[in-house]
Structure formats: C-alpha cells, structure tokens
C-alpha cells in the first residue's frame, strides 16, 4: 500500500525543551492512523508541522509526496486540518462558516456535500444558529464538516474527541470509518487509549519519541507477560501487598481495578488466598486482555 504521509527523523525543539525527537513513521493511504500519547507527548507539534504551520528543525515530512517545508502552498489544498481548539468563527452561523471555508478553497458546498452529509445532517436543522452557541458535540461536527468541505486527501485531527461525551465519541469514530470508506486517509491523535483499538495502525508517542508502531492487536501482543485484574474491598492496601510479591513485575491502578503484570508462573488463586490471609476482604484476581494502555505504561517505564 502507498504511504500518504512519510516522516523521517523529524525533530523540533522549543528552546531547551525537545518536542519531537527523531520521529519516523509513515501512514498508508486510505487508513485511519492513530497517534496515541499523553498530554505533552508532542502530538500537537507534529500536527502543526504536517499542517504546514510549523517548520521542523531537522528531518523531513512529506504529505502526498509534497514536502511540508517547501511545497506548503500546494499542500494546503490537499489537507483538512482540525486543530484541538475550536477554530471556527463563533459569530458566524453554521451555514456561513461552511460556505466561508468552502469558498476560500474555491469550491461550492454542494460540490462535496455527499462527503459531509452524514456528519452535517444533525446540524442542518439549525443552519442559522451561531457557531459559538452550539453544543460541544455539534461544534465538533461543524469543525469536521468545514475541514472536509474541499475534499482533502488527508484529514489531520488533533485530539478531536477530547472533552466530548462517550456516546458522541463513539459516534465520531463511526464517522471516521465512513470517511475512510470514501478514500480519505486520516491521522487522528488521542489521549484516550481505548480509542486506539478503532485505528488501523497506531503509533505510541511519549516525550517526543515513538515507542512503537503497529496494528493495535499486534502492539498489545508485545506486552508478552500475562496480565490480571485485581480488586478488593480496600484498593490501596491491595496495591501495596501485590507490589511486594516476588512474581509480580508491576501493579498499577487501571480504572476501578488494579492491573497486575506477572511472571509466567503466577498463580492467581494462590495469591487470592494468600492476600485473604493477610486480612484483605473480597479479593478477586482474574486474567484480562492487555490493552494499549498497559503496553504504554510498560514502554513508558522502560523509557524512563
């Protein structure tokens, strides 16, 4: 498969802070590529370079064969960029924003309406409402519509689901899948690890460095060690007790439970009994599937 984005050894410093260090990866055409990492990992810097808003210090990046530093003028018509912050005119109406961005790219709204129709359908009910008065989910749909109205080949989405409720987030990922069907390559970043599973390929970014790139399933398989979820009446004593056990490699809070990375010979039932004897009530330990977050924690620890 052709790659639509090619990044080689990209480095960017802000004064003495390094935002990106030797970042190298490529995004296959027609895929959803996820950029996963916590806040401050360098995701937005990478987006700004790809969106031709920032020049890298070292390394190269090409999008659709065009160099982001030299051929930015042609490139700007090929990319659709949705920054993390809502960046439409709050005092223009829904329709005015859409027509404004369409006309800047020299297209009519109806030319590519098929592309945005599924996204825009809910907004079409209030075309005259000012963008600033829309709800969070609606703002996001309008911003996506505006970023798509010139039918870009590549869509750059910087944390599109941050601050959006769970239902809207799931709906949003559904929309991305539809766009991929229409041949649009999508680079999407998120700090929600659970969203990683909905990407074709993901890159884990931590402190400006790529920790791993692969499909979500192959990446999680890299964890290697068996993983268990543990819970008890009182979680903190459980955490301390588990961390003190010889065959436990790592133990950390994961949502409402603890995740335990253990050696191959770890015996969950024996451990449960041992913990009860130590006075912990309702101890339960059961095997779980590793997630991207587990891998991330392991890789990030290794990095530190």
């Amino acid at each position, binding site marked *: 498969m052709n790659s639509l984005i090619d990044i080689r050894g990209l480095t960017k410093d802000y004064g003495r802070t390094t935002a990106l260090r030797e970042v190298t990866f490529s995004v296959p055409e027609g895929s959803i590529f996820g950029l996963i990492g916590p806040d401050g990992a360098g995701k937005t810097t990478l987006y*700004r370079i790809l*969106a*031709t*808003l*920032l*020049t890298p210090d070292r390394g190269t990046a090409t999008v659709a064969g065009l160099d982001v530093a030299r051929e*930015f*003028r042609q490139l*700007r*018509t090929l*990319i659709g*960029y949705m*920054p993390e*912050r*809502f*960046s*439409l*005119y*709050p*005092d*223009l109406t829904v329709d*005015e924003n859409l027509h*404004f*961005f369409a*006309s*800047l*790219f*020299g297209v009519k709204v109806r030319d590519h309406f098929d592309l945005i129709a599924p996204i825009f359908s809910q907004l079409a009910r209030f075309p005259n409402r000012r963008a600033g008065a829309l709800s969070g989910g609606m703002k996001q749909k309008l911003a996506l519509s*505006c970023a798509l109205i010139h039918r870009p080949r590549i869509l750059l989405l910087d944390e599109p689901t941050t601050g959006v409720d769970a239902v809207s987030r799931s709906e949003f990922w559904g929309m991305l899948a539809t766009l991929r069907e229409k041949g649009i390559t999508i680079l999407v970043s998120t700090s929600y690890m659970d969203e990683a599973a909905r990407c074709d390929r993901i890159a884990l970014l931590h402190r400006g460095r790529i920790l791993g790139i692969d499909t979500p399933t192959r990446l999680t398989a890299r964890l290697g060690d068996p993983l268990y979820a543990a819970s008890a009446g009182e979680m903190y004593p459980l955490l301390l007790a588990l961390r003190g056990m010889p065959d436990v490699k790592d133990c950390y809070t994961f949502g409402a439970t603890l995740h335990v990375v253990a050696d191959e010979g770890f015996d969950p039932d024996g451990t449960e009994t041992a913990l009860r004897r130590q006075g912990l009530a309702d101890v339960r330990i059961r095997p779980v599937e590793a997630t991207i977050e587990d891998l991330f924690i392991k890789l990030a620890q290794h990095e530190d």
Partner: protein
Amino acid sequence: MQTRILRILLKKELTLMLRNPLIPRLIVAMPLLVMLVIPLVADLDVKDVGVAVVDRDHSLLSRRLVADMDASASLTVTAVCDTYDEALRHIERGDADVVLTIPSGYFRDLSGGKSPHLDLSANGVNATKGILGAQYASRSLLQTLTRWSAEEGTALPEAATASVLNRYNPTLNFRNYMIPALMVVLLILICGFLPALNLVSEKESGTIEAMNVTPVGRFTFVLSKLIPFWAIGLLVVTVGMLVGWLVYGLVPAGHIAYIYLAAILFTLVMSGLGVSIANRSSTLLQSIFVMFAFIVIFQLMGGLFTPIASMPRWAQVLTYAIPPRYFIEIMRAVYLKGAGIADLWQQYAALAAFALLFCLVAAKTYRKRE
C-alpha cells in the same frame, strides 16, 4: 493578488463587525462624543479679563480708552487706580489680570506728534490668560486710537499703528484650532486600536489557525484586516466634519479633497501600525498595552495640545518621526488657511512614506508559519 478570496474575507469581516455588540456603536458614538464634548471642555479661550487702569493722564482721550476697553466683549475694567502699586494689589487679589498705565501728558504728547508709550503688564501665572488678555487689551487700545485719529484728521505716529494681527483665526478661537486636530485623535484611536484588536482576537480564539491552513495568502489576509478600517476612518472623518460644520459652524477654508487625501494616508499609517503590533502580540492585553504606548506619544508629541514650535529643539526634531504631526499640520492648514497640495506637499509626502513603511511592516511581519 487573490481578488476573489479578498472579497470573501471582506464580506466575513463586515458580517462579523456588524454582529459585534460594541464596534458599530463605538464607531458612531465615539466621534460624536469627542466632537461634541471635547471642544467645549478643552477651551483655552479667555473671557472676562480684568483690567486695572492707572490713569495719570486724566484727559478726554484717556477716559475714552478706558471706556472703550470696558465696553469690549472680553475685557472688564475692574479698577481705576492712582498708582501702579495699587493696581498690582488688584492683580494679587485676583480681580485683575492686566494693568494698563496711561502716563501723564499722554494726550498732549500724542497731539503734539510725539510717540508716547502706553504700558501694559499682565499676570503671567496663568500664562494663556495673561498673554491673550494683554493682546485683547492692546487691540482695544489700537481700535480706539485709530478711530480717534480718524475723527481728529491726524495721522497716528508709526509706532502707535504697529499691531498684532491674528491671521486665519481672527478671533483666536481655540475651538477652531482644536476641531481639525480632534479628528486626528479619532483616527488614531479607531484606526490604530481596532485592526490590532481584531487580529489578536483571531489569534486568541484560534480562528487564525484554521485560516492559516487555507490557501489564503498573507498579503490578502492582512489587506482584509486593513481595508475595513480605512473605510471606517473615512466615515469617522466625514462625521467629524459634519459635526464641525453643523455644531460649530466650522467649514474647511481649503478643498475637502485635501482633507480626505490626508485622512486616507493617515488611516493607512495607523492601521499598518496596529496590524504590525498585533503580529508581534499573542494576547489582547499585550497588543493594547503596546498600542497605548504609541498612542500616548502620538497624542502628546504630535502637536495636538502643545504647539510643536514651543517644544525644545531636540523634541521638535523627534516630532518628525511622529506621523500625526503631519496630519495635524495638514488639517489645521487646510481648515484654517485654505492651504492646498502646493503648500503642504512635504507633509503629504511624509504621511505617504509612513503609510508605505507601516503597511509593508504589517505584511512582512505576518507569519502563517513559525
């Protein structure tokens, strides 16, 4: 030039401006307020100048001089004293601003063809009132003397006829001097602040990010920020001139086109400066503070309140770098003297040079990429 895109951007600017709850009102209310209130408040005209007279002559002529003075609009004879010291005490008490001394034998000497002296001294504590009061008094004296000599059929000695003539603003009306300059203040504020605030608020709201990834060129974008404020600047000047005419009865002595030409150049200067400052600021607060620093210097050193001629030499040299100086000179010369391009080409050239400079800086410092 991306004419099509520029048109789209201008339409957007207009829509946004009209939807703004404050800006349209400000554009109408501020010129009206400034033009209606400030000329009344910042009035340096002198009325009710008190004159203490020391009449040692006690002639028909001396009594006529005093009576005429008392009858004139802005002078009141508050005391007739025998000695200068007594008159000075009236000044100290504050009921007189000017002392007129008519020497004994004044009438006889004047009739005998000599050149006797009248003596005027003024209280310099309130400099404006003192200087203008002495001027009013000497004018009144001259009028009486001229009339008297005409009646007598004698010619006044040369020295007595020498007089001060206030050309172009015959009544020394401070209002006529201020009104043309107030329009300059309006343009400084509106065309300097609004483009800067407009651009920085796009930075703060993040909309500039979305604009920068579109094919909009930076010159086109900067132009879309400048053009609306040029139009507003001309509107403000028009409102200002209408108020000057309808309320104060002041119409330019020169051609109105010269005023518009200067206003166009000056709006370019101010809006160019505003956008240049906005390009370097990342928050509204920064841009307002920097703009304010410029505006204070412009207002105080542009010759608006303090005449440039009365500044120290080094400060006079500095004012050549203050663009409003040229606009104020043009406005006053066209309004009061009826001057035209032939008289003012240097000022127009200086304004044009500043306009070009600031607009170039505005376009050059705007960065779509960091």
